[in-house]
């Protein structure tokens, strides 16, 4: 056996590479450390704060949208969380809505209907080619200008939603059940039974509906002069639900409903695999999700009250408010991002071989089913990576909130807090870390989804 020729470590390409890399890392690390050290000592010399002591100090300013309790006597740290949550709310709602609209527009772009196709094209070309900031300012003005001042608020006064009493509820449930049973029966038997079934169903529905629209307070929908919903240029004011003791049972029942319907779904699938018979999964789960919490709600003595907004002085007080800034920002981000998502969806669908659709058609699948069962699942593999980019963009673009006065992380933390504390380096560093973390988290979730959707290679 021959021993391999020994060479000096310096001439071994692997070792040499490692040595160079270590040397480079040391130099870069030293430079960074030196710069940081220099910055710290210079900041100290100039009396600029170098630590996070400000975090627990009283902020002293107010924020107009706080989903966690916050007031002027809260700390800067609390203000950070308020801003972060506001950012998350806009980003979360924005991503969901942009995805829905984006998919619809993307599919419409490939529609055979000229009107739908042209609308989608105009939408995409217009919205993705106008700078987002302009769009945000446009929506903000478009919302503020036509809306009245608080005294002339638009209110939905004609229809009021309130909960019916237990008797009405039971009668309605029986009526709905009867209507459903009649409908199922009429499917099985012909002629006379059908007529009978339809008649019973109509009667039942009518009775149920009547008991819901009862004027005398027993109904669910009735006419009243206030619904507690007001719209003006300070925002949309809606009643605030206040949960009393026992509401945890309702939540529990809802959770049980979800678990049961999931279980039923699994059972139904297994049954279909075994026997080929389909089960009414949607219907059963809807019943479980609605009926169980409703029964718990009744049983625990209706632990729900509403705090209604009341016009006092300048504005409505009490209740919940959706601010015009929030609506303008969400609307702007959603419509803008949806245009890009639509293009992503279109490219994904066009990337699926035409033969796939033709094969599905040959099997007798309708157009909608072809899209849902054959084309989209394959298109998703192309769509997901660029879709992730759009989600990241939407989240980062939400920082434009500062221009229309929505209190997001950048506006509250990198704006007011930075200015009041003077801790520019720390505040910007924290803000950057937060956006980085949000982006990495989104990427990670999308990567997981991507792995699930990826083609199972053989």
């Amino acid at each position, binding site marked *: 056996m021959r021993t391999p020729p020994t060479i000096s470590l310096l001439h071994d390409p692997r070792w040499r590479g490692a040595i160079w890399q270590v040397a480079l890392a040391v130099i870069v690390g030293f430079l960074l450390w030196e710069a940081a050290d220099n*910055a710290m000592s210079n900041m100290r010399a100039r009396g600029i704060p170098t630590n996070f002591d400000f975090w627990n100090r009283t902020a002293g300013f107010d924020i107009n949208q706080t989903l966690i309790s916050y007031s002027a006597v809260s700390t800067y740290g609390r203000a950070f969380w308020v801003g972060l949550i506001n950012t998350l709310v806009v980003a979360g709602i924005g991503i969901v809505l942009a995805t829905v609209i984006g998919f619809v527009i993307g599919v419409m772009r490939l529609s055979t209907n000229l009107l739908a196709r042209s609308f989608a094209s105009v939408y995409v070309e217009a919205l993705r080619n106008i700078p987002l900031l302009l769009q945000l300012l446009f929506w903000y003005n478009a919302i*503020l200008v036509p809306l009245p001042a608080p005294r002339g608020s638009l209110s939905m006064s004609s229809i009021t939603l309130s909960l019916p009493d237990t008797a009405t509820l039971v009668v309605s449930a029986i009526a709905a059940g009867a209507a459903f049973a009649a409908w199922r029966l009429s499917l099985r038997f012909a002629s006379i039974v059908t007529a009978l079934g339809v008649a019973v169903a109509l009667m039942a529905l009518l009775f149920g509906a009547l008991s819901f629209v009862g004027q005398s307070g027993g109904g669910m929908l009735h006419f009243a002069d206030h619904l507690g919903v007001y719209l003006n*240029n300070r925002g949309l004011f809606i009643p605030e639900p206040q949960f009393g003791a026992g509401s945890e049972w309702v939540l529990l029942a809802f959770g049980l409903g979800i678990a049961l319907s999931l279980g039923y779904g699994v059972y139904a699938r297994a049954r279909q695999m075994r026997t080929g018979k389909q089960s009414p999964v949607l219907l059963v789960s809807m019943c479980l999700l609605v009926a169980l919490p409703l029964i718990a709600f009744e049983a625990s003595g209706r632990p729900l009250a509403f705090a209604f907004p009341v016009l006092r002085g300048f504005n409505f007080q009490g209740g919940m408010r959706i601010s015009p800034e929030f609506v303008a920002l969400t609307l702007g981000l959603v419509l803008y991002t949806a245009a890009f998502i639509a293009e992503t969806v279109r490219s994904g669908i066009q990337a699926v071989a035409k033969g796939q659709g033709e094969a599905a058609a040959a099997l007798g699948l309708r157009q909608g089913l072809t899209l849902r069962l054959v084309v989209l699942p394959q298109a998703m593999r192309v769509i997901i990576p660029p879709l992730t980019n759009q989600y990241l963009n939407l989240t980062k673009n939400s920082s434009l909130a500062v221009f229309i*006065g929505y209190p997001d992380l950048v506006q509250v933390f990198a*704006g*007011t807090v*930075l200015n009041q504390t*003077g801790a520019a380096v720390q505040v910007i560093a924290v803000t950057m870390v937060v956006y980085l973390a949000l982006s990495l988290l989104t990427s990670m979730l999308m990567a997981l989804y991507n792995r699930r959707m990826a083609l199972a290679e053989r």
Partner: protein
Amino acid sequence: MRSVCLAAGLVLALASGAQAGVLDTVRQKGFLACGSNTGLAGFGLADSKGEWSGLDVDFCRAIAATIFNDPTKVKFIPLTAKDRFTALQSGEVDVLARNGTWTQSREAELGLNFGAVNYFDGQGFLVRKKAGVTAAKELDGASVCVQQGTTTELNLADFFRTHGMKYEPAVFATSDEAIKSYDLNRCDAFTTDVSQLYAERLKLVNPDEHMVLPDVISKEPLAPAVRQGDSQWFNIVRWTHYVMVNAEELGITKANVDEKLKSPSPEIRRLLGVEGDFGKGLGLSRDWAYRIIKHVGNYGEVFDRGVGENSRLKIKRGLNDLWSKGGLQYAPPVR
């Protein structure tokens, strides 16, 4: 994002070790970098030709005049309220004359020094006449438009807290956006320093439908600021204002300054550099004060031109009159 750039600039500026004195740096680059308002009539505003004017603008011109004997050697850098202190800390500007309020924490925590107060102001409210409000205490429940990153934002919170009243702040990055939203009826009131209320009111569609409430809810001493750690530069900035106030007190104006060189008054002779060399200690020339008055004028002239009688704002001298006339403007003597 501008604040990210500024923060990066701050890190770089701070990471680059020792620096020369600001006066030497300014002389070397040949102009003064002056942090200015993005556009506030009376204090700092560029016209359509890019010509800047206003009280704070004239202050920077005065510094340039005393250093270069040329008031045009200023580069005005418009800054929002939010970014201004970071820009000063990072060295992007040499002096910040941007109607900034002198507060304890800005000196103690932001590492800044405030020069002499060149405008004594206070915070007030602008409301619609038809709202029927006559005093700030009647604003319970109101929505208030306010600019971000100002003492205004804090005073507002304090005021409503003190009186146990509720309000909704609508906070905007620039004063322009705040006043525009107020004009669109997003808010019941707009708040800032009273001098600015008069200036911003001019931007409204119908200025006559709005009024400034008589209440002043805070003390706002507006003063130019510099970075800490350069006493010479701090002295120059402080004394630039005192020269203008002393000149007004001694009756020296832009027009008669050459005549006054022959004045027998020892105070005037010292100020104008005829007797003694008071510029030397500041690293400036003997005629340092003469240059300021010759090119820019005394405080009264600057005030009238910027915000007073000769301007569109027509603000009365009030607190900003000389101490001898019942105001607060008081300058230490040059001797």
